């Protein structure tokens, strides 16, 4: 813990590369504790890559590289020695739900077990807590032993969220979590997120501009690896954001 500025995440002059091709062209921003921070922008603008740079799973892609600094709680992620601890601090929810080929219970208990927890009583209580937090408990409490992969798409997405919560993250990253699920489930999860905000920082990558508007306090418009605009939602979604492109994108007249 060095030079803690109070920001939860601090990104300085971030450049990322896939096989020599630059994705982010030196972006800088910061995220405050307990805020919902939305990232909007068209495909290929580097939203997912940004999340993967933060929890250092970018390095699993051969040929990827990053320069600049990302600090989580004031600590440079590149210099983190316990990278698994860093990843546990950050919950990650992918666009398409990934139920691991395990039972519902084991899906949620996977992360705590990976960090060495074996206590059955603790795990039971913890699995229930995470499933309740992700609004899935009532639907699956009688069949925790059945396969997570057999759940419906919306249920699997909530299972993924439960798994992301299972390692008690301080930051929750949701990468277009609603593209595979119906509007009703989406609204339920959005309610969950508003609850979770009290406990953690939430980064919401979304293609739904209105979702960013509903949930976030601040929104960042990322386009082709550059920040076009980053401001509070009052400004971003007003009739007069600083950049004309923001107005166009938000109002669907982009391009």
């Amino acid at each position, binding site marked *: 813990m060095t030079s803690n500025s109070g920001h939860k995440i601090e990104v300085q002059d971030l450049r990322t590369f896939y096989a020599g091709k630059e994705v982010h062209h030196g972006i800088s921003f910061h995220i405050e504790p307990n805020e919902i921070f939305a990232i909007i922008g068209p495909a290929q603008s580097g939203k997912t890559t940004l999340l993967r740079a933060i929890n250092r799973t970018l390095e699993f892609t051969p040929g990827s590289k990053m320069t600049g600094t990302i600090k989580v709680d004031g600590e440079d992620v590149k210099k983190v020695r316990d990278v698994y601890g860093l990843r546990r601090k950050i919950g990650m929810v992918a666009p398409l739900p990934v139920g*691991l080929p395990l039972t519902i219970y084991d899906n949620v208990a996977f*992360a705590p077990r*990976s960090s060495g927890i074996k206590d059955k009583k603790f795990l039971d209580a913890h699995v229930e807590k995470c499933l309740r937090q992700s609004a899935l408990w009532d639907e699956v409490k009688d069949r925790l032993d059945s396969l997570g992969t057999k759940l419906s798409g919306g249920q699997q997405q909530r299972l993924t969220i439960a798994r992301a919560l299972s390692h008690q993250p301080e930051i929750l990253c949701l990468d277009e979590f609603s593209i595979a699920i119906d509007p009703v489930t989406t609204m339920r999860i959005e309610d969950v997120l508003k609850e979770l905000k009290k406990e953690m920082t939430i980064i919401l990558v979304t293609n739904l501009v209105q979702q960013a508007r509903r949930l976030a306090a601040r929104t960042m418009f990322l386009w082709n690896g550059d920040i076009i605009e980053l401001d509070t939602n009052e400004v971003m979604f007003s009739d007069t954001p600083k950049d004309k492109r923001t107005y166009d994108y938000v109002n669907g007249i982009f391009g």
Partner: protein
Amino acid sequence: MFTETAFIRKKRRNELMAKCFFGFMAAAMVIPLFLIVGHIVIQGWPALSWEFLTENPRSGGAKGGIWAAIVGTIYIVFFSLAISAPIGVLAAVYLNEYARESWFTRVVNLAVINLAGVPSIVHGLFGVAAFVYFANFNDAKKSIIAAALTLAVMTLPVIITSTKEALAAVPRQFREACWNVGATRWQTIWRIVLPNSISGILTGVILQVSRTAGETAPVMLTGVATYKMLDSTGLFLYNPIKDQCMALSMHLYYIATQAINIPKATPYAIATVLIGVVLIVNAAAITFRVYLRSRKKW
């Protein structure tokens, strides 16, 4: 409205012809199998008996049975797979799960591909040099372990390739989901990747059973004797380090081409037993695989 034009009639005729043609090719595939197996079993049937299976050969193979050869084949297959399966699977896990594209992995992959293409007699000569003389298990004489090692080297590339394919069939999202919750690569492999690829890995290993059981040239040079009596009382019938053994493949070759005064049915009976041993091992393994696959979870 839906009247049949000449064009549509032609289309339908072509469709029918294509279907029949492809179907015939698929059926043709089955014919040689039945011919070969049927011919061998019918020809060999008169010579098959309990004594044939459980007695040592006498009078240069003309009389008695093939017990020693059955046991020898089982020994060779068991030891060679006991060596090549773990090494092959672990190497494939490294190549598929840990290694990044580098000059090292390129060299390894190149070696795997080329090793798989080496003819078996060349493997046999290599085995003589490496395991009979250089490793010298048995005072520069042939031994079961030398034959098993030779066959292990031969099967290794195939096991590596098939295991890699089985591992690659596990979706990458599963791995990423595990990494995202802070699991190490090893935890991911052990809890998710291996349980979901084990049936595919086993298939690759099983296929090598018939290959090792059938090889003649490499074992002839490195560990198999034409004739070796077997005291059929002990549990451990051969000493794998110090003994040579008989093998079904070699015995079949010898009986069919070298020995004299052999009843006509004997070589066919040996072939039947060789096929039977392989089929039994395969059936057992396939049953196990079906059981594993029934537990596959996506």
